């Protein structure tokens, strides 16, 4: 019981700290590292909720592929040690006030509605839904989705490369004129 509690609160604060680390990290590579840790800790939260598939999906898709893609991108553009700056102080203050109001509204809604409509709504959906999806049957289509993602990303890359190559001669022609 106590171990469970400590485990939950450790994950709770570790996830929030990593999310804050992504935003307030002074250097680019620290921000990317914080994102990788955030992915790992949020994956452990899924494990805590008995969602093993989600943990595996998140770890493979985001932890392995997305994080390495971000690291490679940062390295390719040579900004791995770039100092990161925040917006002006006035903008930060206005954003904080906006977020505080948003959070307050959410908490008010949550405390009033969670016991009445929202929670019972989800409970009703869960009780009335006789059709439960067998997750294993959907692994094949989901892997197809993954393949489509890679194909669409490479097509987009080729498309953007081609459009830039078309733009460059135009610009050079204009400068000659």
């Amino acid at each position: 019981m106590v171990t469970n509690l400590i485990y939950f609160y450790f994950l709770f604060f570790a996830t929030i700290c990593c999310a804050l680390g992504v935003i307030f990290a002074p250097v680019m590579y620290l921000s990317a590292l914080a994102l990788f840790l955030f992915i790992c800790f949020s994956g452990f939260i899924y494990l805590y909720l008995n969602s093993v598939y989600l943990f595996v999906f998140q770890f493979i898709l985001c932890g392995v592929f997305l994080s390495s893609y971000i690291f490679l991108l940062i390295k390719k553009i040579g900004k791995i040690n770039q100092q990161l700056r925040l917006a002006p102080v006035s903008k930060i203050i206005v954003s904080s006030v906006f977020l505080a109001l948003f959070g307050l509204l959410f908490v008010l809604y949550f405390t009033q509605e969670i016991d009445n409509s929202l929670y019972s709504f989800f409970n009703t959906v869960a009780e009335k839904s006789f059709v439960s999806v067998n997750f294993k049957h959907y692994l094949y289509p989901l892997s197809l989705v993954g393949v489509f993602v890679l194909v669409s990303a490479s097509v987009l890359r080729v498309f953007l490369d081609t459009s830039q190559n078309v733009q460059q001669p135009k610009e050079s022609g204009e400068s000659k004129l």
Partner: protein
Amino acid sequence: MINMFVNIGLAHFLVLSLILYLTGLFGVLISRNMLRTVMSLFIMSVSAVINFAAFGYYCDKSMENANMISVFILILTVIQTIIALVILYKIYQANENLDAEKIKDKES
């Protein structure tokens, strides 16, 4: 009062999800670097996935429906992040910079 912190339930995960969502939104609003904006958007999406997983665990007995929706959201999140990164790379090639305000000043 102590029971509220000891008995972990749906509310705890909803609070975690809310804090992560607000953190991501804060990052989107205050960061000047566009790469960090994309990372903040990713944090917001993960908070939505945690929300769904928590509702699935506490309300749906079979867990399969919640897992399906969560994996779907996760895949969409990765797609949007990768496409955003590709576009950012192209922006960097054009402007030699990823600072949103500097790019805006350059264009104006």
